[in-house]
């Protein structure tokens, strides 16, 4: 199924959010040929791809070079977050750029980042990653007094480091969350999040005794995949259908979710169903913990559920649906900050209001 993932410039199927296509490719049940594909993608050396592209592009200041292709190359790695892929893609824009002044480079980057952002408006971390990088390029005092070439190499170096940070971030988050997982606790998990998996894996490695309840995660059944992974770690796991959350909440000690994006209010945007789980947890006085890397902090301030770019995703009901019946295909919802207890980020354990403080300070 992953092989059908379109890598063309245009989103071939506007009915399905590109973001979720990537997720499906990364997180769906692993088939052997998909694995081979992913291996090939990882094995390919990034430098080659860049030089191929730029040589094909000719002299016209990297016009032939497509940032989106580059991004798609990076995106194929299942362990690489989208934001990091975006930053690496932007870095290769710098590398292949023939600009001679900072201003030129900035404009070029702006164009590239805009095209990346508009290519997939549904991916929040992609947008957030582009914004973060652009902010670094345009607003950093560190670059002001250097000559152009050293500034350029500095930018490249920074982009490289970002990749490492993203990998380290998960480890840090897993470490921070350990003291919150106590022996004998029951954790409810919704959706498949690499960070949450890392958290649970670390806890299992630390010989903690805990039980996990996984929601099914309709329609793409991400919960099945997570329960699969947890079973491999010998963690006791129980699957729930999505509607059994309130029923099981009394045996739950804490709710752990990942996030597609963390927004300025301190709330999160995550897979459909997170909001209702948070509501149930709040009404039963259970803590809701969010694990999210700091590059998912986005400059968005959704006022309600509909105040977002909708990310759509097909839903298979198993039976044909009459054409007169409308289907809600939105893939995610917004959970306001008052329903969250803590966010575990690589910046520390933050309460939602600190997150908004952090974001406001950064873009002030």
């Amino acid at each position: 199924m992953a092989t059908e993932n379109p890598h063309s410039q245009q989103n071939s199927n506007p009915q399905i959010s590109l973001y979720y296509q990537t997720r499906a490719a990364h997180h769906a049940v692993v088939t052997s040929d998909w694995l081979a594909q992913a291996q090939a993608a990882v094995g390919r050396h990034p430098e080659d791809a860049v030089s191929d592209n730029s040589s094909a592009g000719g002299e016209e200041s990297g016009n032939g070079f497509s940032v989106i292709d580059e991004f798609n190359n990076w995106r194929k790695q299942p362990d690489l977050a989208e934001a990091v892929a975006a930053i690496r893609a932007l870095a290769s824009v710098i590398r292949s750029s023939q600009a001679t002044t900072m201003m030129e480079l900035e404009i070029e980057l702006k164009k590239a980042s805009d095209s990346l952002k508009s290519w997939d408006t549904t991916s929040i971390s992609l947008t957030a990653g582009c914004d973060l990088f652009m902010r670094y390029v345009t607003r950093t005092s560190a670059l002001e007094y250097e000559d152009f070439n050293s500034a350029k190499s500095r930018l490249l170096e920074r982009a490289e480091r970002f990749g490492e940070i993203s990998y380290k971030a998960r480890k840090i988050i897993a470490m921070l969350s350990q003291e919150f997982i106590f022996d004998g606790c029951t954790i409810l998990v919704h959706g498949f999040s690499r960070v949450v998996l890392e958290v649970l894996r670390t806890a299992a490695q630390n010989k903690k005794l805990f039980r996990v309840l996984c929601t099914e995660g309709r329609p793409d059944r991400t919960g099945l995949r997570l329960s699969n992974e947890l079973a491999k770690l010998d963690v006791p796991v129980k699957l729930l259908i999505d509607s059994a959350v309130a029923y099981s909440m009394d045996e739950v000690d804490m709710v752990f979710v990942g996030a597609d994006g963390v927004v300025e209010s301190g709330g999160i945007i995550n897979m459909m169903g997170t909001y209702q789980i948070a509501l149930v947890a709040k009404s039963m006085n259970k803590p809701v913990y969010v694990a999210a890397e700091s590059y998912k902090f986005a400059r968005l301030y959704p006022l309600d559920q509909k105040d977002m770019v909708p990310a759509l995703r097909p839903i298979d009901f198993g039976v044909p649906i009459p054409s007169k019946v409308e289907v809600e295909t939105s893939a995610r919802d917004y959970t306001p900050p008052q329903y969250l207890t803590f966010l575990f980020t690589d910046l520390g354990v933050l309460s939602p209001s600190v997150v908004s403080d952090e974001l406001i300070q950064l873009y002030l």
Partner: protein
Amino acid sequence: MPDYRGLVDEFVAKLNKRKVEGSQATARLTAELLRSVVSLQKLPCKNQASVLIESVRSVGVQLIAANPIELAVGNIVRRVLHIIREEDVSILTSNTGDLNLSTESGDEEIEQDNNPSSFAASIADIYRSSLCAPSLHALLEDAPSTKAPCRIYTSGVDSEEKDDKHSLSRKLKHFVIEAIKTLIGDIDSCHDQIAQEAVEHIHQNEVILTFGRSRTVLKFLRAAKEIKGSFKVFIAEGAPRCQGHVLAKELAGQGLKSTVIGDAAVFAIIARVNLVIVGVHAVMANGGVIAPIGMHMVALAAHKHAIPFVVVAGIHKLCPLYPHNQEVSLNEMRSPSELLEFGKFSNFMDYSTGVGAPPLHVANPTFDYVPPELVSLLITDVYCKEEEILKLENRLWTSNVVKKLVCLTENAYSIHV
């Protein structure tokens, strides 16, 4: 064997027997003890900071184990550890200039490195960044170094001459001791700093409710009285220790209109109250507080009637631990004699009569945990000094301060001593 052993043992014994009471006194004594530990510790030529850190840490572990519920001890130990690291970094940076000079004179060891001064500077930068709170901004401006900050400390200046080393060791010690002195001064003056805030919170003819006795609250109310004149104070006695009686006496002595009520009367009286001000034992990382027993009830009453529940606490009470941490969930059980006179009930509490455990038990816990939702404001002393009086919503406030505190402590990610 270091000479400070005796001092440490003495203080540990005091903590064990609960001879030291009150977070402020404990914090002060801890800081003083650590000051003598620092001054008595013999320092080798290399790695002074790490030796110092190691000795302070081992003393700290003992102190914390002696009385785990007195969180101020741990807080002060973390502060001192931070002070040592900070001073070490600042010495390292100031040495950068010296290094630069010595390259010109052609020192071999240093010339191995292409650019020693910038190397030292970058190390200093790394340390500095590891000392301050991680933030998105820092992530962008100064991404965490790829090379893990290996523990070099002042050993970076190995090539200095002998007497230089000597002065250096004295320098580090001297700076650290100076900084601890400032810390002790801060602890001493925290009540007055907090009292400065009083004017902003208490107004003419208001009715204030407080619970038990806290020196911080006493100073706070006294300061308010000097400026605002007339307001009324209700004092819940805070059974079983009834420290509220003492506070009532002190306040009445100052000419403040005070009324003593029983703890059970809090709900009955709360509708007449404009503001609840209390002192607490410790403030946790999530903004919840550990307070004398009975406080949760007061907080609930205030919450129910939408009356601001204000907590005053010196910065030494802010603790980077979460209330589910093992050390914190421990409550202290005090002697039952505070509740019951033994003579009257001895028949039911005697193990020698009857079989098995006696039928009558007395539980006398010392602390309550008040969750952060019930705390409307936290006033502490740290920002007044920076002339930056932050009075934001409690959650943001505390977690910001705690974020700062956490970084004041260890490197940002391990908050345990």
